[in-house]
């Protein structure tokens, strides 16, 4: 009986020490990790609204630019980031995060829309668990840059703002290159992005206009 007691106590003690050690280290680095997260999020928002200025080379500068130019609102329990011009008066664009079911797991991106809500300022995919080398290539610049300038005025027959078709086929203005070999991811992105855009235009935009 003594041996069992010894091993139980031993296990308890060892686990206690090690988990305490880990929590201690976590606690020390906690705010640094959160700061990193915040930095990353701010960078995503800034680039979605393509507010970029050459002098962002240090975290502090990005922080000050972000605080100066971005206001945050809560509409229909969704975070909307409102971008202002460099005097901080006129609204240059709105950004909000959207996520949807990719091929393997959730994909999240930040959508930037122009102040007059006529066209897209840019899209940044900041989180996905797609297959590396295939679906995961949505984070590459050439794919994300396609969406900049997409007009939100006209929808095509199926009510979508844009479609993704295989690379190399001829393109109309609202038809972009899908990722070769990752049809699952491309279709998923097309589906949930269009849905989010419709949601924004139809329900969030009116509230925003009313508010400002």
């Amino acid at each position, binding site marked *: 009986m003594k041996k069992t007691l010894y091993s139980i106590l031993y296990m308890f003690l060892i686990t206690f020490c090690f988990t305490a050690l880990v929590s201690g280290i*976590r606690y020390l680095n906690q705010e640094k990790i959160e700061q990193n997260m915040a930095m990353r999020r701010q960078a995503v928002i800034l680039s979605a609204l393509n507010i970029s200025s050459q002098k962002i080379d240090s975290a502090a500068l990005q922080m000050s630019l972000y605080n100066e130019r971005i206001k945050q609102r809560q509409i229909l*329990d969704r975070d909307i980031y409102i971008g202002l011009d460099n005097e901080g008066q006129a609204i240059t664009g709105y950004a909000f*995060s959207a*996520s949807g*079911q990719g091929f*393997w*797991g*959730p994909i999240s991106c930040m959508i930037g829309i122009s102040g007059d809500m006529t066209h897209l300022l840019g899209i940044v995919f900041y989180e996905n668990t797609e*297959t590396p080398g295939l679906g995961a290539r949505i984070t590459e610049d050439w794919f994300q840059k396609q969406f900049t300038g997409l007009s939100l005025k006209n929808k095509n027959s199926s009510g979508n703002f844009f479609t993704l078709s295989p690379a190399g086929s001829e393109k109309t203005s609202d038809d972009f290159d899908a990722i070769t070999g990752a049809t*699952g991811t491309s279709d998923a992105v097309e589906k949930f992005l269009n849905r989010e855009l419709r949601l924004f235009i139809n329900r969030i935009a009116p509230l925003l206009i009313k508010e400002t």
Partner: protein
Amino acid sequence: MEISLNEISLTTLFFAAIFTNNILLTNFLGLCPHIALSRDLKSSLGLGAAVVFVTTSTSVLNHLLYYHILIPLHLEHFRFVLFIIVIASFVQLVEMIIDRYFPRLYIMLGIFLPLITVNCAILGISLFMVIRDYSLAQAMVYGAGSGIGWMLAITLVASIRDKIQSTANLPRGLEGPGITLIITGLLSLAFMAFSGMIQIQ
């Protein structure tokens, strides 16, 4: 506010876990025992079956543990510790039970269990399950699918290696891990082709 709407259907998830996103061939997990034991078909089958059993049960166990204990207490960052300890003790427990009460099953399945604790695939499945916010049912189906996918991969390679051992005379230095890795590479290429198939459903 993240909407984690993960409504990938169970059947697609099951077949996708076996074929397109095979835990071994696309995610590289569980390679060590695969290379060591795929020398002979019988032990590969035994090990494969043991892995399927362990992956299914541990993914359910870890799912319950994660969503009902870790999340409410904000201890998510301890998931690594608890998952691997649950896997280690579960495997040790199962080995004892099978060893005592099912001697015949122990011969076919049980002796591989200690090897499994070190198998990255088991922990990998639990970690992916958390990252991809699977529900309990999805976690179980994903666990079972990945286990079967792993077993399929190791038995395929084992049978190919048996064939090669008996017929081809390999250049020096290629036998053993060299040829196994190249076969696994070819298989992984083939399995990647499945990703097209799943979309059509």
